């Protein structure tokens, strides 16, 4: 069974700084997909970024980028120029190619003004 581990329950950073959230996973699959979801206080789950394991290039979406290390089974999220609206729970999720997502326990990120 796949597992996803987020080792940082809470983090905080000053506005405009850069922060990196960690995620590791365990799988025997070779092709799979990784996602970061954001859950603000409104509770809605919002896709932040996704990565396909067969692509070596790290995914980037505006201020959000990932550091995907396939051999180490690591998938960290970097948020640059952090904004107050980035305050949320962030969940790392793994899809082994069967549409079933396995989520980590989340990291609560607070952006301090």
């Amino acid at each position, binding site marked *: 069974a796949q597992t996803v581990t987020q080792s940082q329950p809470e983090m905080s950073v000053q506005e405009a700084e850069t922060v990196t959230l960690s995620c590791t996973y365990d799988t025997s699959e070779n092709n799979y997909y990784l996602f970061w979801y954001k859950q603000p206080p409104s*509770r*809605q789950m919002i896709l932040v970024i996704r990565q*396909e394991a067969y692509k070596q290039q790290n995914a980037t979406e505006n201020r959000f980028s990932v550091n995907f290390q396939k051999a180490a089974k690591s998938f960290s999220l970097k948020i640059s120029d952090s904004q107050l609206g980035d305050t949320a729970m962030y969940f790392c999720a793994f899809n082994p190619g069967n*549409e079933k997502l396995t*989520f980590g326990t*989340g990291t609560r990120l607070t952006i301090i003004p």
Partner: protein
Amino acid sequence: NAGVTQTPKFRILKIGQSMTLQCTQDMNHNYMYWYRQDPGMGLKLIYYSVGAGITDKGEVPNGYNVSRSTTEDFPLRLELAAPSQTSVYFCASSYGLSNQPQHFGDGTRLSIL
């Protein structure tokens, strides 16, 4: 475009009561999912469906039932509510391709007293 709509948003049940959580999507997605999110945890898959008339168990199906008579609707039924089912429930849908994200509803907060 409404996306994924869940009703109700909040509900309090007594132990032993039954209820149905409604979920509908207007994106013509074949795949639909039900998750529960316990406090401080990630989402866990309860049931999923790959198309009308087809459903399958996820990680935590006990105490729940689902049906999928149409592409749009995927209701979740609790037959004998128990305190352990107190949680936030999320419905999601996707095209069914592993690299495509799941689109989530706003969640239903359910308390069993």
